[in-house]
């Protein structure tokens, strides 16, 4: 290790104060600190020893939790491709290969434009160290994109999200909105043709799909029942044998790259809960809120979508992914423990409301989380105000 350290020390010289490349000091520091934890020690007064945790490890834990869903997403892209074009893959490796070819470029484009161009530029201009936040955002953005998304759109969305959602507010820790969701919302409103509808969720390459292929997601089908008046479960079953409840849970269905498999997402959720990196309160309350709201709509039962069994809401669309990986973003979520329950419940409730009561937007989780991101400080405000009130009451007694 000493050998590598020596190389780094030598390379460091021009980046130091007074050196030729001083401007790029923080860029170099990023690489340096990825290789080595710095030799900085604790201060004169105060704690003399520090906990072994740091933000890099914290963020890396989230990435590790994302891996099962990401790998499954790659596989699923290939699976849907072969199914739609009516070819038989020679081996499961072929499925993987299609998925990797599709997904890896999206990830690379996200990192190149989000991290290497935008973040690095801000680091040099604003003279602050690179924040680890984008390590996670850079994986999250591809996972909420449809597999057919044009790469140039990914690039624009990444640049927009990093600039407007994060750096404009001062960087990781200061942002109000979830960066990855801003990227998706940007595309949703700027280029709706490539991120909504029935034609974008299955990658077809240059092939024409087989007869009878629809490409509609379960969410879209559920929304269609408002017009057809059919029972949702029956219409899902009629569409495809893949749309059984169990399969919706396992996730071999069309959808955004990372969001289809509830099983894989729950593995990630388990990692986040055990490590304490993601708030279990938020996850549980999002699912609970959605389930509860669906029950309420069941009771109303004015149309087939309202009558859909509540558990279906939990396995279709992006609800699980949003609940586990997006809503739990500590910076944009509520920061008080009581607030987390309210914040999560509201996300769940709003998601189902948007889905069922406003068919113009088939998926509600994205807007529900962004909406609650904006209201999280207000939720906290009231929770903290209660604490202040307790203190004030004590003083006057």
């Amino acid at each position: 290790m000493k050998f590598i350290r020596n190389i780094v020390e030598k390379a460091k010289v021009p980046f130091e104060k007074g050196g030729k490349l001083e401007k790029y000091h923080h860029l170099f520091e990023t690489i340096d600190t990825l290789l080595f934890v710095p030799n900085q020690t604790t201060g004169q007064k105060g704690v003399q020893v520090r906990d072994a945790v740091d933000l890099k490890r914290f963020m890396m834990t989230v990435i590790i939790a994302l891996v099962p869903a990401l790998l499954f997403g790659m596989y699923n892209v290939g699976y849907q491709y072969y199914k739609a074009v009516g070819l038989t893959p020679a081996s499961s490796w072929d499925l993987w290969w299609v998925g990797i070819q599709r997904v890896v470029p999206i990830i690379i484009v996200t990192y190149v434009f989000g991290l290497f161009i935008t973040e690095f530029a801000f680091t040099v201009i604003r003279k602050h160290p690179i924040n680890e936040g984008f390590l996670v955002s850079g994986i999250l953005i591809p996972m909420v994109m449809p597999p057919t998304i044009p790469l140039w759109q990914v690039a624009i969305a990444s640049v927009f999200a990093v600039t407007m959602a994060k750096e404009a507010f001062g960087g990781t820790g200061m942002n109000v909105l979830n960066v990855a969701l801003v990227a998706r919302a940007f595309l949703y409103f700027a280029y709706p043709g490539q991120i909504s509808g029935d034609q974008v969720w299955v990658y077809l390459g240059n092939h024409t799909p087989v007869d009878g292929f629809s490409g509609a997601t379960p969410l879209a089908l559920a929304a269609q029942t408002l017009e057809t008046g059919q029972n949702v479960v029956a219409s899902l079953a009629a569409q495809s044998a893949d749309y059984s409840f169990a399969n919706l849970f396992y996730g071999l269905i069309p959808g955004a790259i990372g969001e289809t498999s509830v099983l894989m997402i729950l593995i990630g959720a388990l990692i986040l809960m055990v490590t304490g990196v993601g708030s279990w309160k938020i996850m549980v309350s999002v699912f609970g809120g959605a389930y509860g709201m669906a029950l309420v709509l069941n009771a109303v039962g004015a149309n087939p979508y309202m009558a859909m069994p509540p558990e279906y809401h939990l396995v279709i669309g992006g609800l699980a992914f949003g609940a586990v990986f997006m809503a739990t973003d500590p910076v944009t979520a509520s920061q008080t423990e009581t607030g987390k329950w309210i914040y999560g419940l509201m996300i769940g409730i709003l998601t189902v409301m948007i889905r069922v009561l406003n068919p113009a937007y088939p998926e509600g989780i994205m807007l529900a989380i962004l909406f609650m991101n904006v209201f999280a400080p207000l939720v906290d405000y009231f929770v903290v105000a209660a604490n202040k009130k307790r203190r004030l009451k004590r003083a006057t007694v």
Partner: protein
Amino acid sequence: MSKIIKLRKGFDINLAGKAEHKVSDSQHANTYAVKPTDFIGMQRPKALVAVGDIVKAGTPVLIDKKHEDVKYVAPVSGEIVDIKRGEKRKLLEIVILADKTMEFESFAKYSVSDLAKLSKDELKEQMFKGGVWPNIIMRPYGVVADANDSPKAIFISGFDTSPLAPDYNVIYKGEEQAFQAGIQVLKKFTEGAIHINVNGADEVNPIFLNAEGVQVNKFIGKHPVGNVGVQIHHIDPINKGDVAWTVQPAGVIQIGKLFLEGKFDASKIIALTGSEVANPQYFKTYGGAAVKAFTQGNLKQEHVRYVSGNVLTGENIGQEGHLGFYTNQFTILPEGDHFQFMGWIAPTAKKLSFHRAFGLLSFINSSNKEYVLDTNMQGEPRAFVQTGAFEKVVPMDIYPTHLLKAILAEDFDEMEALGLYEIIEEDFALCEFIDVSKHNVQAIVREGLDLLQYS
């Protein structure tokens, strides 16, 4: 009659190098120092002596020009050999070369029954002159108390839960009489109760059990349950406008001795602790002692940090440094100025962590495992990201992150409303330890307290 208060929140840092229950009288420091920096809130320190002056134990050497009555006195007799100053001539240390045999300034001496007859003003005057007043700390702010206040209660923590903390059964053994006299003196200053808070999980130290005229409260929990601030919060919290006083048992004893024996007795037993000490044990010495004598030939290696106090709230004083006025602990840690290859992701069970993020495996170790921690920062400073962790180590009805952000924003109303009056640095020390974003939490707390106190 005493209630038991159980606290669930907190975190015990179990370090290697606990002091063996053995008190040595063999090592004596050459020099002793009075340091204005020990007394937080001292605004305009002024040395009353010059280099070459001869002093006795109890001779005033320092005052705060804002409170000239309160004298800060020499712990030992001898010659002033150095007056160290820092930037802008800030007074740092008044160093005394100790005599072989100790000479004391003499103060009025009382029997226990006479003591009861003294008025508050007579007591106050002797405490000012005799150098024991700085033992009394005022809440809010955690500064030396103002004698014009009448505190609503006085609180004494009867145990210390910080890492490697000295055992009070060892350091206060046989001081029952002086302790009781001290309580008797303090009683005159408050109309409220004197609370002694003891560890409910252990047998009660006889010195506290036999004290008269006090309210004994039992506490059970993890660190920071031994912090007097946490205890106050659960017994009789400090509201805006309230004043409470806190005194360490050592201070009570010193006050008692001033009246019973008529002298300023700075003798104390300190715990020499830490993983790098060959024979961690207790030493008999005086306040402000130079640490060199205790460490020479007693270290496992040379690249170490010398900490006056414990690892959470202590101060790096260096090899030639002197112990603080309030501390009864001295900790030696390995310096951590080394690089760790891929240290931010490598799995480890050796490094202690409150968290369980990927690869931090210390949570699977038994709670008896003793850790060797060095002074490395273990990462770089960042903006606040993680939420919900600080709350788990502050056993009070306070939102630490919100309070810290209010301080950083210099929002006075928020600081007050969120409970800054109830805490001092040590109560948030664990937040600083566990912080993912490596903030200097304790420095921020002091910044807020200064803002509230002086502007």
